């Protein structure tokens, strides 16, 4: 299941934020999400947990509904949207869900192994587990293909991506 890399346990009364990276591994620039999940935990400030969301969203829904509610969820992913490579887009998820038929399609994909940001938002949004406050950070990938290294461009953007994550965790 999800790998929690956080080393700190928030104290009672501290604002709780969960940062999740989503995506497949070994897909070069498209693996920014898992990379962030792997690397940010050690530097997470108090009250911030970091997790790998790279598993099926029905499981994420089940895990989140079991826990005490977070104040905010921050999701990092690198979906290909046609923007300039390296573009970092941060937005508040609008909680708008598609038709029930489309949601069912996404649930079906989720339980048969599909891992992607849009599916996660729809499935967990529909089945439950999100706090009211969900922030998404998208990074436009550059190079496509197999491998465990980033393109030079995305590698140079990693500090900015991390900064966007920490900024998004602030009240």
């Amino acid at each position: 299941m999800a790998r929690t890399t956080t080393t700190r346990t928030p104290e009672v009364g501290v604002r709780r934020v969960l940062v999740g990276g989503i995506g497949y591994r070994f897909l070069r620039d498209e693996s920014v999400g898992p990379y962030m999940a792997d690397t940010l935990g050690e530097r997470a400030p108090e009250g911030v947990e970091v997790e790998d969301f790279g598993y099926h969203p029905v499981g994420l829904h089940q895990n989140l509904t079991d826990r005490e509610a977070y104040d905010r969820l921050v999701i990092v992913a690198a979906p290909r949207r046609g923007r300039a490579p390296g573009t970092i887009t941060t937005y508040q998820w609008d909680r708008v869900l598609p038709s029930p038929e489309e949601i069912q399609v996404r649930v079906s994909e989720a339980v048969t192994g599909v891992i992607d940001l849009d599916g996660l938002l729809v499935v967990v949004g529909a089945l439950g587990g999100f706090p009211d406050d969900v922030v998404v950070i998208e990074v436009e990938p550059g190079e496509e293909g197999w491998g465990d290294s980033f393109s030079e461009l995305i590698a140079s953007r990693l500090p900015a991506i991390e900064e966007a994550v920490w900024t998004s965790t602030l009240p």
Partner: protein
Amino acid sequence: MSTFTELPIDLGDDGRASLKDGPDPWAYETKELHPIEDTPEKLAKLLERDGQVRRVDFDPVTRVAGALAFHTVVDLESRQVLETDSMATLFRGYEIILKGRDPRDAIFISSRACGVCGGVHATTSALALEMAFGIQPPPMGTVARNLLLSLEYLYDHPLHLFLLAGPDFSEPAVRSTNPELWSKAQDTPAAGKAKHGFNTVAEIMTGMTPLTGSLYAEALHMTRVAREAYVLIGGKYPHPQTVVPGGISATIDASDMNEIMLRIGKFFDYGQKVVAIWDDIVEFFYEANPQYRHIGTRPKNLIETGQWDDPYAYDGTYANVDSWARQRWSTPGVIVEGKLVTTAMTAVNMGLEEFVEHSFYEEWTGNGKGPRGAQFPEDPLGNPLSPYHPWNKDTIPKPGSTSWKEKYSWSTAPRWDRKAMETGPFSRMWVTALSPPNDKTKFIEPTGHSLRMNVPGGALPKATVEWHVPEIWGAFERNRARANAILYTALIAYDNLLMGLDMMRKGETAVSTSYKVPKDFRMGAGFWGAGRGSLTHHLTMDDGVLENYQILTPSTWMASPKDPWGNPGPYEEAVLATPLLENFEKPEDFKGIDVLRTIRSFDPCMPCTTHIHTDDRVITREVITCACGVDDGSDHNHAHA
């Protein structure tokens, strides 16, 4: 019936096989396909029928992980399916990735072949490696593997029955495709109320409604129960971290066993409930219209490699494979036209071939000295092997444009004795039902025509639930069998838990054995199963690395394109035989529910096939029959107005 009727193999009573004489015994003649859309005269004649003949593509290629598309030509006036083509649209290529690697990598890499049931690939790979390395796990290691397999199925079957196939039988689907059935369902009392609590069949259908239905929600929950138990041994799901050659790398204590027992126990009640639900659904449709028995029908040709090893019989060797495989909880075997023709694992293996006449691969012609250049003309026991057998196969991709006449799929055409076979939870139950009982009948009794399952009590009282070999084999019976398979699986898991606890009492707690990767030439095969049917891995290795690795999945068997003789694969064959019972007035209202129920009854392991119809939006594209856009290499998803 002799074991092989099409292959040039004589099989003696002693189980030893020999190749029949002849200059080229494995030769075959191919038959040219004549698809309707390639035949102008037929096409013109059909088009005269005022829009009643339509090409209907069930094509989800636009989705993220689409891997199967299904093309049909249907005559909506006579309500017949005229032509079918099953297309696997993705090349996965694990066979190529694995070549030249350390064999131990195969467990973790092959697991990634599937996002639903990766763990079964890991174990199948471990079995193949054990055969190649000459090792075997200690008994508790085998018990642990059996539990992992069971828990995968207890995840997989509810998921399929209520999240993937179930929506086709839900209130919204029935109301929109056969409203007369919805009215009838409201007036039909549910016979299984004592087990499931629903008053009418309509209430069951409402419960199966995606997202809001109680049965849908309950299935989601039960998948979690199975996963929770799975990770106690596997570490994570669906790609376990603890499966290794020679057993597993996790320790198991009594606490783990109790945690698993607690969760397995929940499936006794749930399994009884699910059987009652599907009995009510199936019988309702049959009573409403007996033609429903023929939705998705095809010959009773099934293959089963057997699963769940006897921890004291399994020795990992090919030399003894017939003996230890017969001691499995699920017996290996092949059923042809309803008759069990063998339970010998060597015969099951010997009959395997894969053909690529209509697949995007090149024919492989080995440089070996065997017939037709076969690298391995015989298996390790000296039985003849076809040049088209997985041990002789080479994966050579040859991408190209889609042509119904030539090549149209990334799936190969697997055949046993040159016949199309299906496999699934039903094949493991069916072969076991027809086989002589072994000593694994503590909770499950094969009768020759059924399986009697003695279910311990929970909230529901203890009961004997009997699954009967169906008279007519079709989509509804596939789903009913899968519902029974929850109990079948839970009882096998229970038996293994009891066996494991007994081993603990005796101090037999070792779960793995040590080994060295051999440097000489070795062959290995893993014969195991996935939720949706039999799964095999065949490998050869030399100098410590893999020379060849071949994965034959259940969905490859069933999504198969036509074979060299023009015979359809199981999906194609079943859809071709399906009557169209959907209620629609205008051709443009046709949703294809009977076709979808047919394909989904096989539990295809391809995310795209899980897409239920969404009116006229993404996945069901209806176009008037035309010959354009098929053979020209253009995107076959393109819809023609």
